[in-house]
């Protein structure tokens, strides 16, 4: 391990009723959409009542990051300002937007309105773990590993972050689709090198066997 290099120290994929951590299927459920996320929440034994108030994008992010940070949190060596998030998706907050639009035909709901921005998922995760580092949410047609790699590397190399949760988190037609990476620059970090190729490989692997 070389000082200064950035590593992918963990990865979680959430797709088609399957949750995968570091290449191993850790949860599989026949339910889809909201029911799948609820089943995952219960399976993981998460106790975070705020979860019930969230839109599906934030629920997907919460479940995925909970799994992503397990083991790691016990030895978390970073200050709140040193941990950031760089997320992306294709459909922004469309699921929450539609929910809000439908509800507004009767009465507009403030609790639905607050989720009508995709970066709220970053806020929810930050509230839970008290992260205060740089963050950004990008919209792109497909997962853009090159962009995520370039942007996160820049933040780390400029000394703004030492750890970053990055990747793809999307919801369309109530179906979550996520692939999140924990990347770290630390002497104790182990894992694959943080390269665009490795991000692509993890993202593209078929986990539905």
């Amino acid at each position, binding site marked *: 391990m070389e000082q200064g290099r950035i590593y992918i120290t963990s990865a979680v994929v959430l797709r088609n009723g399957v949750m995968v951590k570091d290449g191993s299927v850790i949860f599989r459920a026949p339910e889809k959409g909201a029911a799948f996320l609820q089943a995952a929440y219960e399976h993981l034994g998460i106790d975070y*009542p705020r979860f*019930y*108030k969230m839109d599906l994008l934030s629920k997907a992010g919460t479940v995925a990051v909970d799994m992503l940070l397990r083991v790691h949190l016990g030895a978390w060596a970073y200050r709140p300002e040193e941990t950031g998030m760089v997320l992306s998706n294709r459909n922004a907050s469309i699921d929450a937007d539609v929910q809000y639009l439908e509800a507004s035909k*009767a*009465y*507009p*709901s*403030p*609790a639905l309105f*607050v989720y009508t921005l995709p970066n709220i998922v970053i806020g929810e995760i930050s509230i839970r773990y008290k992260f205060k580092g740089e963050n950004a949410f990008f919209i792109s047609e497909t997962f853009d590993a090159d962009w995520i790699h370039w942007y996160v590397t820049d933040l780390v190399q400029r000394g703004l972050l030492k750890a970053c949760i990055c990747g793809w988190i999307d919801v369309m037609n109530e179906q979550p689709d996520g692939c999140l990476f924990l990347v770290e620059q630390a002497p104790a970090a182990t894992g694959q090198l943080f390269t665009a190729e490795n991000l692509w490989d993890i993202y593209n692997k078929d986990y539905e066997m």
Partner: protein
Amino acid sequence: MKNKQELILHLKEQIIKQLKLEDKKPEDIGDHDPLFVEGLGLDSIDALELIVLLQQEYHIKLKNAEEGQDVFRSIDTMADYILEHSV
């Protein structure tokens, strides 16, 4: 109009549903428990939802934001306000 005890139970059920307090049951909420911070732990977005609840279900519009601090102190104060202002 319901009597106060019926209204209090109904309010607890409505608040649990509207604010998605899915880990709570009506019996978990004391009539005089504070709704915000300690007690039920509601936040500012929940306060807006309570205002919507009053308008939607009871056709009561708060006169100003300051009034909300007293009205939403507890389920008991909410019930008193509804009984006093329902038409």
